[in-house]
C-alpha cells in the first residue's frame, strides 16, 4: 500500500531529466509517433489472437495484419500481396539477397552492389561469397557518393542474379538514380533490389513508376516501432524463403506475425505519407540552414555526400583534426545527440567504409559527424548545435595541435 505510488515517479526519472536534449540522430532511429504507440498498446492489450487461427480472435488479428499490409502497399504503390513483413531492414535486405540467390541456384549467382551499402547488404553479399553461393562485384562511387548507372551496366554478366543499390545513404545522405539503374536491370532481366530504409516515409516512392523488384522498408525510421520492417517483392520476382516453418507471409517469411508491430508499421507509414510533402520541405530548409551555418562558422568543414541529391534531413561533415567519437561525446555533454559514421560502428574507431569509398583521406574521415533532423527539430535546435559545435571543434583541434 505505502509508497508504491510515490515510488513510481522517481523510478521513472531519467538521469539527465533536467537538461533539454536536442536530438539530431533521426537516421539512427525516430521516436514512435504517439498515435502509433497508442494503437500498438491497444493491440497488445485487446487483440490476443494468432492471425493463423480461424476462430474469432484469430480473424480479428488477421484483419489488423491485412489492414497494415494495405497501408504499406498503398504508401509505395504496391499490391498488398507484394508486401512481406520482416523483423526490420536487416532481415529485409537478407531476404532479398539470399532469397533471390537461393531461387536462382544453379542458373545465376552474380551479385552486383556498391561500396557504400549498409552492412546488412554488403556483409550479406560477402557472406554468400565466402560460402561459395555468390560471386560479388562491388561498384565504387564518385566523390559525392553517387553510383554511375553505366558502372552498374558494365558489371552485369549472363549469370548476374541480383543488383542491390540503396536509395538514400544512411551516413552521407546521397540519393542514387535508382530509376535509371532499375531500367538497366529490367532490360537485362536481372532482379533489382534497393534498400530504401532511409527514404520510405521521407520521399515519394512509387514502385509503379520505378522499375524496382525488391525494396527494403524499416518502421523505426519513420516514427514506427523498432524490430519491424517489410520487403516489397514485385509479383513475378523469383525468391525463395530463407527460414522454414509454418508458412506465414505466403511462405516467403514464415513465423507468427508480430501483430502489434505490423500495425505500428502500417499506421506509422500512413501518417508519414500524409505529412511527407510538408515535412520533407520543412526539414530540407532546416538542413540547408544547418549546412550554411556550419560552413560559415567552420569554413574548412568538408560536407560529405551530394550537395543537392541528398536526403532532406541529412547534414554530414568531416572536420580535420578531430575524431568523430570525441565530437559525439562532447556534443552529448552539451545535450545534443548526433552520430559519427554509421551508428552501428560508433563503438569502433575505424573510419566508415562509406567515407573511405568517397576517397577521403583516413584522417579526415575520422572526423565525421552526421546530423539528421526530424519532426522534433526546430530552428532553436539548429542554433544550439551551431553554438556548441564551433567551440567543440576548436577545442579538439587545439588538443590535436591543429590550427583552427
Amino acid at each position, binding site marked *: *500500500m*505505502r*509508497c*508504491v505510488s510515490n*515510488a*513510481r515517479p522517481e*523510478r*521513472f*526519472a*531519467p*538521469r539527465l531529466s533536467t537538461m533539454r536534449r536536442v536530438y539530431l540522430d533521426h537516421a539512427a532511429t525516430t521516436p514512435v509517433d504517439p498515435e502509433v504507440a497508442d494503437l500498438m498498446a491497444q493491440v497488445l492489450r485487446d487483440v490476443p489472437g494468432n492471425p493463423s487461427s480461424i476462430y474469432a480472435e484469430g480473424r480479428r488479428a488477421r484483419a489488423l495484419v491485412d489492414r497494415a499490409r494495405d497501408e504499406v502497399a498503398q504508401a509505395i504503390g504496391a499490391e498488398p500481396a507484394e508486401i512481406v513483413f520482416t523483423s526490420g531492414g536487416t532481415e529485409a535486405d537478407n531476404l532479398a539477397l539470399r532469397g533471390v540467390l537461393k531461387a536462382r541456384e544453379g542458373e545465376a549467382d552474380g551479385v552486383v552492389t556498391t561500396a557504400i551499402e549498409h552492412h546488412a547488404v554488403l556483409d550479406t553479399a560477402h557472406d554468400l561469397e565466402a560460402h561459395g553461393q555468390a560471386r560479388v562485384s562491388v561498384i565504387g562511387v564518385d566523390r559525392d557518393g553517387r553510383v554511375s548507372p553505366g558502372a552498374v551496366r558494365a558489371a552485369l554478366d549472363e549469370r548476374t542474379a541480383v543488383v542491390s543499390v540503396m536509395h538514400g545513404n544512411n551516413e552521407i545522405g546521397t540519393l542514387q538514380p535508382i530509376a535509371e539503374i532499375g531500367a538497366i536491370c529490367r532490360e537485362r532481366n536481372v532482379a533489382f533490389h534497393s534498400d530504401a530504409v532511409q527514404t520510405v516515409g521521407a520521399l515519394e516512392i512509387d514502385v509503379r513508376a520505378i522499375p524496382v523488384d525488391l525494396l527494403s522498408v524499416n518502421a523505426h525510421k519513420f516514427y514506427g516501432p523498432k524490430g519491424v520492417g517489410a520487403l516489397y517483392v514485385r509479383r513475378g520476382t523469383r525468391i525463395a524463403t530463407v527460414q522454414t516453418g509454418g508458412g506465414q507471409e505466403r511462405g516467403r517469411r514464415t513465423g507468427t506475425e508480430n501483430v502489434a508491430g505490423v500495425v505500428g508499421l502500417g499506421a506509422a507509414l500512413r501518417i508519414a505519407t500524409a505529412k511527407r510533402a510538408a515535412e520533407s520541405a520543412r526539414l530540407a530548409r532546416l538542413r540547408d540552414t544547418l549546412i550554411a551555418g556550419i560552413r560559415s562558422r567552420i569554413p574548412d568543414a568538408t560536407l560529405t555526400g551530394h550537395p543537392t541529391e541528398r536526403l532532406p534531413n541529412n547534414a554530414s561533415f568531416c572536420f580535420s*583534426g578531430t*575524431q568523430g*567519437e*570525441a565530437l559525439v*561525446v*562532447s556534443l552529448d*555533454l552539451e545535450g545534443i545527440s548526433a552520430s559519427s559514421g554509421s551508428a552501428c560502428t560508433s*563503438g569502433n*574507431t*575505424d*573510419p566508415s567504409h562509406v567515407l573511405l569509398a568517397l576517397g577521403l583521406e*583516413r*584522417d579526415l574521415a*575520422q572526423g565525421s559527424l552526421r546530423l539528421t533532423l526530424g519532426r522534433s527539430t526546430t530552428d532553436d535546435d539548429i542554433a544550439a548545435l551551431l553554438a556548441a559545435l564551433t567551440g567543440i571543434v576548436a*577545442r*579538439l583541434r*587545439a*588538443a*590535436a*595541435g*591543429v590550427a583552427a
Partner: protein
Amino acid sequence: MTDDVRLGPASLAPAEPHSKDHYSDRALDHLTRPRNAGTLSGPSGTGSDANPSCGDRTTITLRVADGRVAELRFRTFGCTAAIASASVLTELAAGLSVDDAARLEPADILNALGGLPVRKEACALMAIGALRGALVDARVRATA
C-alpha cells in the same frame, strides 16, 4: 513492502550510472578541459605513439630539471579516451623523478580517470608510450 510487480525488473529505471561501456565523469572532465594541451618550445625530450588500428596519435613534450619532470605538454588526435589519457598523464607525471615517471603504467591512468570503457583501455597504453618515448629522448639528448 514488495515492489509493484508492474514496475519490476523490466521497469524503465535507469541502468547503473557508469557501465563498462561509458566514460566516467573524470574522463569527460579531461575531454572538456584538457590539461597541458600544446607543445613545449625547446623541450628536453619529445615522444610520440600511435594506434595504427584507428589512426589515433599522441605526442608528449617535456622539460627535465634536476632529475625531475618539471613540465609536460600533450597533443592528441583521437577519441575521448585518447585525449583524457594523455591529459591526465601530464598531471600524474609532473613533478616525478625521471625514474618514477618511467614507471607509470596504463593502470595508473585508469585509476586516475576512474576507469575507461573496456574497449578503450589501449588508449591509456598510447599515452604511456608517448611519455616513455619522451623520457628516453630526454636521456639520449642529455648524454649526447
